[in-house]
C-alpha cells in the first residue's frame, strides 16, 4: 500500500519521464538497440564458410561428400578448382576460407574397403575459427564416409555425445540471457541514479526535503516508475530474443517475473545509492556505468566462464549480482528449472536488493536529517 504522498511523487515522476525524450530514449530504445547489436555481433558460431572444392574423382560418392559439406549449412561452395595453385590464389584472396580436395580413386578405394584420405585445407589466420572449422569438417567427413562405405564396423567403445538444452551449441542461446541481465542492469542503475541527482542539481530535492514527506514514501514513489519501465523493457527484450534469436521459453513466466523483479529491485537500489554520493549528473552517470557495466560484462559469466578465472577474480564474482541472475535466468529460460531449485540464486538476489535499498535509505535519510 503506497501512501498519498508517495503517489504524488510517483505521478510526478511518470509525467516527467513522459515529457523527457532523452530518458525515454535511454529506457526504451537503447535496450532494444543493444539487443540487436550484441545479439548479432556476439556470435561465436561459424557459418557459411566459403569452401573451394577440387573433386578429382567425379563419382557419385565424391559428389555425395561435397553435398554433405554443403548441406551441413556450415559451408558454402564458392568455387570449383583444379590444382593447388588455384586453391592458393583463392585462399590468398580470401574468396575461400577452406578447400576440400577429393583424390582420384576415392570411390574405388571406398568400395574396396581401403581408407581413402581427403584433404581439407583451412586458412589458419584466425586460430579459433580454424579449429572450429576443422571440427566441423572432420565430423562431416566421418559421418559421410561411414554412410558411403556401408560397411560400418563400429569401434569397440564409442562416445555418443548428447548436448542438452542447446543441442546445436548455438552461442546466441547462451548469450541472450546474459544480454538481458547486462541491459537491465545498465538502464535501471543509470536511470535511477540520474533522476535523483538531477533533482539535486535543479534544487527541487532541497524543496522536497523541506516538505513533511518521509524518505520511504519519496523512494517508493520515485522508484516504482523506473521499476515498471525496467520490467517492460525486460519483457520487450525477452520477446525480441524469442522472435529474432529463437530463444526458447521452457520455464514458467511467473518464475521469470520473480527473478527479474528481484534483480531490478537491487539495480534500482544501487542507482539510489549512487545518487546519494554523486552531486552532478556526470559523476552519477560514470559511477553508474562503471559499477553496473563492467562487473556484469566481465565477472558474471556472461561472456567469460567463471570457472576458468583466477581464484581472486572468482571470489569477486560472488558479489556480482548478475552472476546469480544469469544462473537463474538461463535455468528458467533454457532448461525450465522450477523456482524451488533456484533458491540459492534467489536468496542471493534478495540479499543484494535488500542491502542496496537499505543502505540507500539510510544514506538518504541521513542526508535529509
Amino acid at each position, binding site marked *: 500500500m503506497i501512501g498519498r*504522498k508517495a503517489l*504524488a511523487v510517483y505521478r510526478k515522476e511518470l509525467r516527467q519521464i513522459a515529457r523527457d525524450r532523452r530518458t525515454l530514449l535511454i529506457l526504451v530504445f537503447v535496450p532494444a538497440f543493444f539487443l540487436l547489436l550484441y545479439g548479432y555481433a556476439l556470435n561465436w558460431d561459424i557459418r557459411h564458410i566459403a569452401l573451394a572444392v577440387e573433386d578429382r574423382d567425379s563419382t557419385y560418392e565424391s559428389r555425395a561428400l561435397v553435398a554433405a559439406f554443403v548441406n551441413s549449412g556450415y559451408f558454402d561452395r564458392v568455387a570449383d578448382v583444379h590444382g593447388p595453385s588455384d586453391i592458393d590464389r583463392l585462399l590468398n584472396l580470401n574468396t575461400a576460407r577452406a578447400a576440400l580436395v577429393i583424390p582420384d580413386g576415392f570411390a574405388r578405394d571406398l568400395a574396396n574397403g581401403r581408407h581413402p584420405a581427403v584433404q581439407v585445407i583451412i586458412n589458419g589466420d584466425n586460430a579459433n575459427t580454424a579449429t572450429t572449422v576443422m571440427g566441423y569438417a572432420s565430423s562431416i567427413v566421418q559421418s559421410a564416409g561411414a554412410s558411403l562405405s556401408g560397411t560400418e564396423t563400429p569401434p569397440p567403445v564409442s562416445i555418443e555425445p548428447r548436448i542438452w538444452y542447446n543441442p546445436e551449441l548455438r552461442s546466441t542461446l547462451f548469450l541472450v540471457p546474459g544480454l538481458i541481465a547486462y541491459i537491465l542492469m545498465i538502464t535501471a542503475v543509470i536511470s535511477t541514479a540520474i533522476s535523483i541527482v538531477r533533482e539535486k542539481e535543479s534544487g527541487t530535492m532541497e524543496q522536497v526535503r523541506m516538505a513533511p514527506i518521509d524518505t520511504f514514501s519519496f523512494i517508493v514513489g520515485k522508484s516504482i516508475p523506473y521499476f515498471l519501465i525496467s520490467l517492460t523493457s525486460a519483457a520487450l527484450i525477452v520477446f525480441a530474443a524469442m522472435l529474432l534469436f529463437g530463444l526458447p521459453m521452457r520455464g514458467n513466466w511467473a518464475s521469470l517475473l520473480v527473478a527479474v523483479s528481484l534483480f531490478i529491485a537491487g539495480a534500482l537500489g544501487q542507482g539510489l545509492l549512487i545518487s546519494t554520493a554523486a552531486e552532478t549528473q556526470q559523476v552519477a552517470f560514470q559511477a553508474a556505468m562503471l559499477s553496473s557495466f563492467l562487473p556484469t560484462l566481465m565477472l558474471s559469466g556472461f561472456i567469460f566462464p567463471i570457472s576458468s578465472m583466477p581464484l581472486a577474480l572468482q571470489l569477486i564474482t560472488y558479489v556480482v549480482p548478475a552472476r546469480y541472475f544469469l544462473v537463474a535466468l538461463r535455468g528458467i529460460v533454457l532448461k525450465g528449472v522450477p523456482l524451488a531449485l533456484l533458491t540459492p540464486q534467489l536468496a542471493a538476489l534478495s540479499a543484494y536488493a535488500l542491502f542496496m535499498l537499505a543502505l540507500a535509505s539510510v544514506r538518504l535519510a541521513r542526508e535529509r536529517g
Partner: protein
Amino acid sequence: MTCAIDVRHLTRRFGSFVAVDDVSFEVRTGEIFGFLGSNGAGKSTTIRMLCGLLKPTSGNATVGGVDVTRDPEGVKRRIGYMSQRFSLYELLTVDQNITFYGGIYGLDGAALARRRAFVIEMAGLEGREHTLARDLAGGWRQRLALGCAILHEPAILFLDEPTGGVDPLSRRHFWRLIDDLSQSGVTVLVTTHYLDEAERCHRVALIHAGRLAAIGTTAEVKKRVFADRPIVEIRATNPVEAMRQLDLLPDIESTSLFGTAVHAVLRSRALPADEIRARLQASGVAVQSVTPVAPSLEDVFLDVIDRAGSAA
C-alpha cells in the same frame, strides 16, 4: 501567541568552523523579518536549522511553537520555504507543479482545488496553467514558486534570497505579495542582499561571521550603530584620492565610496569640516561639498563588516 520564531543561543559547527555562533532573536507573529549578511555569513545555515533540515550543535529554537530539534517533521508541516532557485519541475506544467507540491503536503480534492485557484490568481498565471515551468519568464516562475511554497497555508514562511535574478518590476510585485501575506498574519523570515528590500522589513537582523551584529527596525539599527559617530558625505573631484587622504586624518574612523561621493564615519560628534577641506585642497583635490548625512543601511552593513574585520 505573539512569538512565531524563538531562537536561543543557536550554534552550528562544521568541524572546527563555526558557521552560526550563539545567535538569539525572536520573530513576532505576522512580522516581516529581514535577515541580512554577506555570502557565507551564516544566513542559510540558520534557516536550514530553523526548517528542521540541520541539527544545531547547541542551543535551541522553536518555530510555530515546535522545537526544531525534537520535532523537525512538525516544523516542516508549519512552514513554507522558497529559495532563490525557484525550485520548480521544468518539465511539468504550472498545474502539474501545483499538484505535485500540494500532494507532498498531503493536499488533494477540494482543498487542493481551492488552493490551486488561489495560487494561479495570486501569481497572475490565469491562462498559463498548461505552460511548462521552463517556458515561464523569471517573475512568473518566482511567483509560482512562492505559490507552491504556501499551498498548505503555512503560518511561517522562509524566503531565502527570493528575488535573485528578477527584474525590478517583478521584485516590486513580489514584495506586494509578501506584504499581503504579512497582513493576513503570516510570519515571513526573508534573507536578502538588496538593502532596499531590507528597508521594507518590519525588523532586520544583521549577521556577520556567524554572529548577530545588530537587530531592530532599520531606523533603530542605524541609530544604534551610529549613535555618536556622525557620517559626512564629501563630494570632490577625485573621490579615490580623497578617500586616501581622509583615511590619514585622526578624526575619521573609516571611509567608503558611495557612487561618486565619499562617506566618512567620524570618531566624535564634532564636525571637522574645515579640516577636511584644508587637507583635501592641500593635496590637490577640489572639494565641492561636505555635508552631514543620515546613515543608510549600507553604511551600517559596511561598518559592521569593517569593525568585525578590525577586531579579528
